[in-house]
């Protein structure tokens, strides 16, 4: 047996020339992908832990996995997931765990190789930054020894803080992305790279260290710093240590003066790469630190920036002088210790908000500690410039919770500060798609009424063609998540957002194609799910997520379809307003009532013009509008007397509404005054002008699906080919079989289906997986568009090439009826392999259809119009011609394919229509 803490780490012994003081290399200069030698932190003479196996010379080499500082504000992290199990082999670069920090979820990879011997903190558990969470044995035989003998690695262990573990970070700005269209995570990297700041930050010098005091700066501002130079002496809870730089450059700015304390991970000083840039770096402050510069092993700065900065392209320094945010002196408001046992406190309420003046002694916030709720007064005077810990969030005692500035003018500067104020001048060089992942996700949202969930992209460098899937839900956004978003819904939204872009779809398909990928997708979804707010938080049961596609399960949709109920009229009684099967039953039986509905006030919605100066908005609408900066006059009110309600503001913001109210009936339009008899002309004059609808109209699920599908196809390269087809023979055939119930649509479908048999490429779809392939569906299913009142459905004639024309006609009629009743099953409208859209019956000459997703081609059919032509026999005659247009996916279908298809189709319809009756 080995006693805890007694383990021989052999390899470092020879590297330790210092007897009594630690010499520490800061991880500055360490790029995340470039592991640092394990010996970079040298231990003192205490480095030897002698094995307790008596005189045994056996050495057991262990490494630890510790909780990295993922952001400068992170004090502790929660292990969301271990991706390795005890006993698993871990290669360098393997992801070992997923850590949830205060900002985002990050995958943490190992820079050590070995076997996971023991998890000291289980998934779901929390560890302080620097704390050992797992042990790695270098040899498989040592697993038991390491697992059994070592509870925690002694402080100063060589493996921590030097890159035993690190976090994958976004690609270094100097490494150009290999594909256009990559959501670029950090917009100002180009500019930042030009500034070229590096940093010295407070390292974790022991597993218990959460902060360190800068005892002495050994370099002054402006001094040249060489790699290996000791720049500062840090006093930790255990010892004083020299911290040396791995960067070379010039010490531009000392942010933590001597005698001051910094949290682990906090930036202590900035290093400029050239002397000229010292001033620039100095004025830019921490924002100038290049992400991935290696200055922080974890890409902290970058993570922080992403959540803060809008997707604005940055300015390369050489193009325009960098406009840097002036630094504004701020005063911190701290989380006070309200009791002797209090270690952290929850800000339950801010009594002041950004912009408010705070006087000394004035109450600024309410803090919930372990014992009591206390109002906390300010010892400082100033204006709240930034709230660092939102109401509901927890901060450790002593952590800053808000920033005060001395003048109201400085507020904006502080608020804007993180967005290093470079204005776009010219597009960044080698511009990778200038959209942050969050923005991309948002842009990918097809329906404005659906809540936008911002998923943060963390480039794990793992996925082909440079696509960066957003893999975690930004925690800052989580607070704004609509209540009632359960984990599954969030995951569903996430998937939906991914699917809304071609790239995302390709990525998903890619993943789906391998078992490993499927597993990965599962992990990703799990990670996304943990960001869901508590289920049903503060949601009255009937509050529904308006416009969400996830208000109901497919089963419920099915039930509603069968019962012929419009789901938008049903208020869900499930958590988060989900529609439950019983809601459908109640709706069907007409028993459904809205709780809280008050007949006295709500039945009549008066048309009312508010008096001058009256703000027609309820208290909640006002509160929300103020919070979100919404101009109430721009919001359409649906409350009593047309006043704006909280939900109206939410709707205007695209947030889910809280109360599912019955849709306000349109104000009854006044009936036209009866025309006086015998005075028709007068009646004509007074005929009311039909009012045109104005404003936003909600779309139902079908309409939204159409919109989404159509948007999804814009990224597909298509071409179009048209030709005329003489339909006289076809028409004659139709006349002959009309009485037997055969329809033109069925005949058309049959003709197309038979032609597709000869041209399978037109029936195939392009598959982005594995760099592209052609997917042959194995059957010919012709989908035809059916216009419905306010919508569009595409019922599918399955195996139209094989089913006889009479059956096909019957099938079609049934499908159309089902479509009208909105009773089509999913398989009846989503399995088409080729689409036909026929507007000929409405006199359309020619049309130019848009390719639906998932197929290779669609054919638009115009009307058959009599034309005078020279006929085959040389006579001039009249024949009917219709123009058909094929829209094809040019990734796998070429112009000649389409032309050949049309040629054969024309031949069939013009010369051999009888064949349509045979197969």
């Amino acid at each position: 047996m080995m006693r805890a803490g007694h383990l021989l780490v052999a390899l470092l012994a020879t590297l330790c020339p210092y007897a009594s003081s630690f010499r520490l290399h800061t991880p500055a200069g360490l790029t995340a992908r470039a592991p640092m030698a394990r010996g970079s932190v040298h231990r003192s003479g205490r480095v030897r832990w002698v094995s307790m196996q008596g005189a045994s010379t056996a050495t057991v080499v262990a490494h630890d996995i510790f909780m990295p500082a993922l952001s400068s504000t992170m004090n502790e992290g929660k292990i969301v997931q271990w991706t390795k199990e005890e006993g698993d082999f871990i290669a360098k670069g393997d992801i070992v765990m997923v850590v949830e920090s205060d900002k985002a979820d990050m995958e943490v990879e190992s820079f050590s190789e070995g076997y996971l011997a023991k998890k000291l903190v289980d998934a779901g558990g929390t560890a302080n930054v620097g704390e050992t969470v797992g042990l790695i044995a270098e040899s498989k035989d040592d697993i038991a020894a390491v697992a059994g003998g070592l509870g925690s690695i002694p402080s100063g262990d060589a493996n921590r803080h030097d890159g035993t573990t690190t976090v994958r970070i976004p690609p270094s700005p100097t490494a150009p992305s290999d594909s256009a269209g990559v959501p670029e995570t950090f917009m100002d990297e180009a500019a930042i790279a030009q500034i070229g700041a590096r940093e010295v930050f407070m390292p974790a010098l022991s597993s218990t260290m959460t902060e360190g005091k800068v005892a002495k700066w050994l370099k002054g501002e402006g001094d040249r710093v060489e790699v290996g130079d000791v720049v500062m002496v840090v006093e930790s809870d255990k010892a004083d240590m020299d911290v040396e730089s791995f960067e070379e450059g010039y010490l531009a700015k000392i942010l933590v003066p001597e005698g001051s304390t910094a949290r682990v991970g906090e930036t202590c000083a900035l290093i400029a790469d050239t002397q000229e840039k010292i001033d620039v770096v100095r004025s830019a402050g921490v924002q100038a630190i290049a992400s991935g510069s290696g200055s922080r092993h974890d890409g902290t700065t970058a993570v922080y920036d992403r959540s803060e900065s809008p997707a604005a392209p940055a300015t390369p320094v050489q193009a325009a002088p960098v406009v840097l945010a002036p630094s504004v002196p701020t005063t911190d408001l701290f989380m006070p210790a309200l009791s002797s046992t209090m270690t952290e406190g929850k800000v339950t309420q801010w009594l002041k908000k950004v912009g408010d003046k705070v006087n000394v002694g004035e109450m600024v916030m309410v803090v919930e500690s372990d014992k009591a709720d206390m109002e906390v007064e300010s010892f400082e005077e100033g204006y709240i410039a930034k709230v660092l810990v939102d109401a509901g969030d927890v901060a450790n005692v002593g952590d800053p919770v808000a920033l005060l500035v001395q003048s109201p003018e400085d507020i904006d500067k502080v608020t804007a500060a993180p967005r290093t104020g470079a204005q776009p001048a010219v597009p960044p060089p080698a511009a990778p798609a200038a959209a942050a992942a969050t923005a991309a996700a948002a842009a990918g949202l097809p329906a404005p009424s659906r809540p936008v969930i911002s998923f943060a992209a963390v480039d794990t460098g793992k996925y082909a063609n440079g696509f960066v899937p957003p893999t975690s839900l930004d925690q800052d956004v989580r607070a704004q998540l609509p209540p009632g978003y359960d984990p599954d819904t969030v995951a569903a939204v996430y998937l939906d957002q991914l699917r809304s872009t071609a790239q995302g779809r390709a990525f998903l398909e890619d993943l789906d194609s391998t078992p490993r990928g499927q597993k990965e997708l599962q992990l990703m979804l799990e990670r996304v799910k943990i960001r869901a707010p508590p289920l049903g938080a503060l949601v009255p049961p009937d509050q529904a997520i308006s416009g969400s596609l996830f208000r109901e399960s497919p089963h419920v949709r099915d039930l509603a379809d069968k019962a012929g109920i419009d789901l938008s009229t049903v208020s869900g009684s499930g958590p988060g307003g989900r529609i439950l099967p019983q809601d459908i039953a109640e709706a069907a039986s007409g028993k459904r009532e809205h709780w809280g509905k008050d007949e006295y006030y709500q039945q009549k919605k008066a048309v009312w013009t508010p008096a001058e100066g009256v703000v027609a908005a309820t208290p909640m609408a006002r509160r929300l509008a103020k919070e979100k900066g919404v101009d109430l006059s721009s919001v359409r009110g649906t409350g009593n007397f047309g006043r704006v309600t909280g939900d109206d503001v939410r709707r205007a913001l695209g947030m889910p509404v809280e109360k599912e109210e019955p849709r306000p009936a349109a104000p009854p339009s006044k009936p036209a005054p009866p025309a006086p008899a015998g005075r028709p002309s007068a009646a004509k004059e007074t005929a009311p002008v039909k009012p045109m609808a104005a404003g936003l109209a909600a779309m139902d699920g079908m309409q939204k699906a159409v919109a989404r599908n159509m948007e999804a196809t814009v990224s597909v390269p298509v071409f179009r080919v048209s030709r005329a087809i003489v339909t006289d023979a076809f028409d004659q055939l139709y006349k002959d079989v009309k009485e037997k119930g055969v329809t033109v649509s069925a005949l058309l479908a049959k003709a197309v289906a038979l032609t597709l048999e000869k041209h399978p490429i037109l029936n195939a779809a392009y598959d982005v997986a594995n760099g592209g392939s052609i997917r042959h569906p194995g059957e010919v299913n012709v989908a035809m568009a059916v216009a419905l009142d306010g919508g569009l459905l595409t019922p599918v004639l399955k195996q139209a090439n094989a089913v006889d024309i009479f059956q096909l006609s019957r099938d079609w009629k049934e499908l159309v009826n089902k479509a009208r009743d909105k009773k089509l099953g999913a398989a009846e409208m989503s399995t088409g392999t080729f689409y036909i859209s026929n507007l000929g019956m409405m006199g359309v000459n020619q049309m130019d259809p848009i390719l639906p997703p998932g197929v290779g081609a669609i054919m638009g059919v115009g009307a058959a119009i009599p034309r005078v032509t020279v006929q085959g026999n040389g006579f001039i005659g009249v024949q009917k011609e219709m123009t058909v247009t094929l829209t094809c996916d040019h990734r796998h279908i070429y112009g000649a394919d389409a032309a050949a298809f049309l040629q054969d189709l024309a031949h069939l319809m013009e010369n051999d229509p009888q064949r349509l009756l045979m197969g």
Partner: protein
Amino acid sequence: MVFRVRPAGGLWMAGDNYDYDLVIIGCGVGGHGAALHAVGKGLKTAILTGGDVGGTCVNRGCVPSKALLAASGRVRELRNAHHLKALGVTVDNVKYDRQAIADHAKNLAAKVRSGLENSLTGLGVEVIPEKGSVKGPHEVQAGSRVVRAKDIILAPGSLPFVPRGIEVDEKTVFTSDGGLRLDSVPEWLAIVGSGYIGLEFSDVFTALGSEVTFIEALDRIMPTFDPEIARLAERLLIRPRSIDYRTGVFASEVTPGIPGEKPVTIKMIDANTKEHVETLEVDACLVATGRVPNTKECGLENVGVEMDRGFVPVDERMRVLTKKEGVEVVPNLYCIGDANGKMMLAHAASAQGISAVENIIGRPHAVNHNAVPAACFTHPEIAFVGLNEDQAKDKAKAEGFELGKSTGHFRANSKALAEGEGDGIAKVLFRKDTEEILGVHVIGLHASDLIQECANAVAAGQTVRELSYMVHTHPTLSEVMDSAFKGAVGIRTH
């Protein structure tokens, strides 16, 4: 010489040609308490109800409002899915029936009223449905006839106060009388006045789905509460709810609306400058600006009493004085309850009634109003007894003692946490020299029940040190009080 005989027939006779030993005008909680105590002491007693047995409390106040609060509080609780989930409870689809809640309140009032009446008749009080007024010494006008009584207790109660400019239709603009009928749950309700009546109504209406705007004339909301408690109340009862407020403004003009046709219009002016500041168009408006004594028709002018803003001046023994700060007592005439303005609370009226009877039968007695607790039945409740912190500070300054303050927190109480209701404090104000309790203020779960031991202690003159050694049941909310008492004398409980 006065003597009383009790004939075999059970009828009592008053001496000296009096019809009754005691006639009580007004049959609210005060009159009722006085009547029961009087017959218990052998007085031949009649009570003039004016058709309003139970008075404001039973018919238009405490009782029906508790019914509404009970029902709406449950709605609030059951709809707080987040809170319930923390307890492991899932409740779906909580609905309420407005009319049924309104009926519950109405039925409760009827039940309490009939109980009250039965107790009077059952114990031998003569209940006269007429309205009464003082005609002269020992003379009471009861409808068309005059009854003679040796002693008279006035207990006419109070009426809702409606400031000038506010037009009440009791439908869209209503006082607490109309509000308790719960004729509707408006989308937006304005409440003029943020005292405990307004606060309780806001609790009811927001729970049922209304949004509320308070209009307070003074410069802080809930001005009558202890400042710290008011701050907490704002945090617990206002901010998290669909409520906003304006302070320092008068509702100078309130015009009723017509549901579905036109809204209620409320014009507001600055309380100081009297300039128009804002106009609101709301669905309904509750006027909760306090209550005025119902003394106009009491006939006090017939016995030479000069009223003070409508209040009947009384001494500490409830004897009517000819004028405020006066020394001249009107013989055999007492006034209790809201009408004397000492403390407009039902239980205070009842205590005063008993006290008046004690004085009538020759046992001098005075109610210690400092020991009368008060409560506001919001969720959570607010309760207090004695001085508030500002008053206590003034007293400390004036009398030159050091004020002590100790606070117990619900957040540290096991029972409160078990209920998931850790919000709130109990604050004890005491003299550091004598350790005498000056005031106790509680906001938190069941505060109205917790205040009682403090009220008893104040009445009994117990010191906070004595209380700190009382054993409190574990685990109960009373331990919040315990921790405050112990904290006051330096004993740590956590």
